């Protein structure tokens, strides 16, 4: 292809960046099709989601962050002043480290070890009644926790710490991917709807209303029931059902931005539509997108946890919801198995809520941070 030809094509799609992205996306699509119809597994289904999200993130997150370094620094300064947000970020960082490096130090979470079942966490002791068939008596034996299994084990001898670490990885991945899909989809629909207006807006909003009327969790359960529990699929479904709130918010923000005076001023100065969208509208929506995304992550994580908890999660994956379920079933013997995942979930949700609130305050020009 000649240089001129490339430039011409780039012009049509709105720039070299967009051309590159479209190229990457087509490559991704072809690989996916090949995987399904022609060859054996090229990538894990979850892998495809990651790559797709990666491409979108590259274009809309990484590149803008790089070119807008100074702006990013400015906002970061504002966020830093919010102590709760910083705490939240620290916790999230801790989770990431836990998820990435934890498995190196802990046993396999699925390894059942009946010798070591029902061990309490370090520092706790439980009593177990053992029936001695010879004497016909019950002897109470005290069992204490050991450092070998710092958080104890469940009734099948699986190490709780390992399970929690595995769950951290699952929750983070689901949070990232599913939120990515939901927010991307919601933003797309919202912006298109607001920008094109008219009939398109009408139809898209009616559709959004319909999807919004289904209670989120029940719809999730319904779809997983029909199609079966598989982690990649669950991530996809959460993303495909959780976009409605984002769509509405982005649409209303875009609509209100369109009529604001600074847009009129830009028009009066002679800016073209494209430039108005890219240089004026999008940057104002981006901060909203970031806040929405951060505040959606907890909901997504909870949704996956709830699904696993009721038994509709991916059985091959150890997630916090699954651990909680195991704990609930043996509440009288191994209560720590029920407590641990909930605490983790709680702090994770809290952390993302703090960060989201901090981001929202940092982006709001009217709040003095």
């Amino acid at each position, binding site marked *: 292809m000649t240089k001129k030809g490339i430039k011409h094509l780039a012009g049509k799609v709105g720039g070299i960046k967009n051309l590159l992205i479209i190229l990457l996306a087509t490559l991704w699509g072809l690989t996916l099709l090949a995987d399904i119809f022609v060859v054996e597994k090229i990538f894990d289904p979850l892998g495809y989601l990651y790559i797709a999200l990666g491409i979108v993130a590259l274009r809309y997150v990484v590149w803008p962050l790089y070119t807008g370094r100074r702006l990013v620094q400015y906002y970061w300064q504002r966020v830093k002043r919010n102590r709760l947000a910083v705490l939240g970020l620290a916790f999230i960082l801790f989770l990431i480290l836990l998820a990435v490096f934890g498995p190196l130090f802990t046993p396999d979470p699925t390894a059942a070890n009946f010798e070591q079942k029902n061990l309490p966490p370090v520092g706790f002791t439980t009593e177990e009644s053992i029936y001695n068939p010879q004497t016909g008596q019950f002897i109470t034996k005290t069992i204490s926790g050991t450092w070998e299994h710092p958080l104890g084990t469940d009734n099948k001898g699986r190490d709780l710490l390992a399970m929690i670490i595995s769950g951290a990885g699952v929750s983070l991945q689901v949070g990232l991917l599913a939120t990515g899909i939901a927010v991307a989809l919601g933003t797309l629909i919202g912006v298109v709807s607001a920008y094109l207006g008219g009939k398109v807006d009408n139809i898209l909003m009616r559709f959004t209303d319909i999807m919004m009327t289904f209670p989120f969790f029940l719809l999730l359960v319904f779809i997983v029931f029909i199609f079966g529990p598989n982690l990649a699929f669950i991530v996809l479904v959460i993303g495909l059902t959780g976009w409605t709130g984002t769509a509405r918010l982005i649409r209303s923000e875009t609509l209100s931005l369109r009529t604001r005076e600074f847009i009129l001023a830009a028009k009066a100065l002679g800016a073209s539509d494209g430039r108005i969208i890219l240089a004026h509208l999008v940057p104002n929506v981006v901060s909203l997108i970031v806040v929405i995304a951060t505040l959606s992550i907890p*909901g997504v994580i909870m949704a996956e946890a709830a699904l696993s908890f009721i038994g509709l999660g991916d059985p091959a994956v150890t997630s916090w919801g699954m651990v909680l379920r195991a704990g609930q079933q043996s509440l009288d013997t191994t209560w720590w198995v*029920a407590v641990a995942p909930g605490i983790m*979930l709680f702090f994770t949700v809290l952390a993302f809520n703090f960060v989201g609130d901090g981001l929202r305050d940092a982006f709001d020009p009217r709040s003095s941070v």
Partner: protein
Amino acid sequence: MGKTWLRDYIIKRLFYAVIIAWGILTVTFILVRIGPTSPADKYLTNLAARGEEPAQVIAAIEARYGLDKPIHEQYINYIGNLMRGDWGWSFSTSMPVIELIKTHWIYSFQLILLSTILAALAGILIGIYSAVRQYSKTDYIATFFSFIGISIPNFWLGVMLILLFAVQLGLFKTYYDTGIPLLSLANLKQLILPVITLSTGMMAGYTRYTRSAMLDNLRKEFVRTARAKGLPERVVIGKHVFRNAILPLVTIIMFDLGSIVFGGAYLTEIIFGIPGLGRISFNAIFADDYAVVVAVTLISAFLILLINLTTDIAYAYLDPRIRYD
């Protein structure tokens, strides 16, 4: 200034609601049909498991579900059946789905009703107090707790409550006893833990929203006018400010209903063993009893539609500014 605005508005909203209802039915239908296994297959697997003769049953199913007919006829049958009250047959419980729903809806209803009332009353009152006494100790405590309330996974809360009060302290039973008559104190007692579980998240949300809506309005000019008129402070807050704060509150509460309440109720019923619609739908999932799952999903969606409709109309009544469009 049209005097028929209310009637016109209601008609417009009803018409719109019908479209949404149609959309709900269609989406559900599509989802079921594009699933990997058809309801018939699942039905069959179940019958085979119970040792019934497949060949005759297949014929019966095909006739019943009209699966031999083209898809658009199936669709029309589907809608027709639903409207006529034929919601299918639940073979896991051996009764028509309608019957199943009739006997179990009351349990969900009592749970959701009690939780919503508690959450709304407590949440709104605390929110108002928090806003009026901003920065006081009570405000900080209330804000703190509401943050915790929305972050706690409500299913975990339920399990913890059971752990603490039922298992360790033995104050409650660990499961719901349907033998107890509904309108009795004993029933109320066994509903305490479930209601706390469900209402905590809601209450936290209501507190936050009320507080923020009140704060927004407390800064407005008309509050100063009200005080300049000589009105006592409690009238200024309770009547002038609150009446304005209610508007965004109503919208937010309605929005939350779909995501939090129904999902939460579903989980709460499962944890505490309350035989409401959520639980029977859940049981149906593991029994592959399609009809029940579809029915409960549809019901919940329609209920939300109804609630949205009512809220829209109430909102038009409450906010005079949008009436005269």
